């Protein structure tokens, strides 16, 4: 079980897992034991986007450049295009997404992962990902900005 940085703003509580790295737009990447990257969305992204109706991830074997869409979430509010922060090849897609896409809402850092990606050695260190405290600060800023707009 990961530990979390956590903040409550207004009536919303947001968690950031401390055992992975992040892109500024709320994609997390966690190295697996075999050197690949498990990828998903943050708690903030899933709360902000709403209940997931459908989740589709590019097929295994798909090779993507950094910034390419690797998955799309259709929620009750939006269609969310998710960019892969680092170039790589999708080697596994979470099979639970077909039958229970709500798992993304229920466990964004756990069973709600989206894909496993194979990347060149050292690639993750070259793309400027955020550590948990840095993403936590970005997320807080995004939440406050959102609330100020309301």
């Amino acid at each position, binding site marked *: 079980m990961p530990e979390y940085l956590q903040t409550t703003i207004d009536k919303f509580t947001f968690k950031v897992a401390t055992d992975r790295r992040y892109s500024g737009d709320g994609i997390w990447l966690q190295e697996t034991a075999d050197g690949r990257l498990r990828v998903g969305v943050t708690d903030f992204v899933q709360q902000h986007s709403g209940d997931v109706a459908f989740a589709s991830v590019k097929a295994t074997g798909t090779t993507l450049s950094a910034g390419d869409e690797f998955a799309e979430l259709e929620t*009750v509010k939006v269609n969310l295009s998710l960019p892969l922060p680092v170039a790589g090849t999708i080697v596994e897609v979470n099979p639970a997404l077909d039958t229970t896409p709500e798992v993304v809402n229920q466990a964004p850092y756990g069973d709600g992962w989206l894909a496993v990606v194979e990347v060149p050695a050292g690639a993750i260190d070259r793309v400027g990902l955020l550590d948990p405290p840095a993403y936590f600060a970005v997320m807080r800023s995004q939440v406050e900005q959102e609330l100020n707009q309301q």
Partner: protein
Amino acid sequence: MNSHEEPIIVVPCSGIGKTFGSVSREAAYEVCDELRPDTTRLLALSKLVLGEEEARERVRSGRTVTIDGCKLMCAAKLVAQSGGTVVREVAVLDVYRQHKDLKPDGIAELNDAGKQLARVIAGEIVKTIDGAGASSTLGEDNHA
């Protein structure tokens, strides 16, 4: 009239300003105004939120179908908290997952797909009301 004599109470979620909430209300209107006006009665969730005793008594004394636009399942929870018996909970999102071509859009005025989704939900509810699926749940969630 069904075997319980009393009309079945249909409670859609409030969901004001939300597309899926609008689908829930549209489905409730379809059931209560068009498909089964003689055996159903519509109840505004806001009356249960406000604790109106007459509304609470209606759900306590009869059988209820709830229709919720999101996973908070406010209608189902409030009926249960009011002491009512939910014979069928509908989660609009779960039905939509079974009908991906019926993507609802709009709030004040639903698009055609949203209206069609509401009709699908209404049709399923009618099956329950007619006794074909009492005590069942449309979709996966059951908070009763």
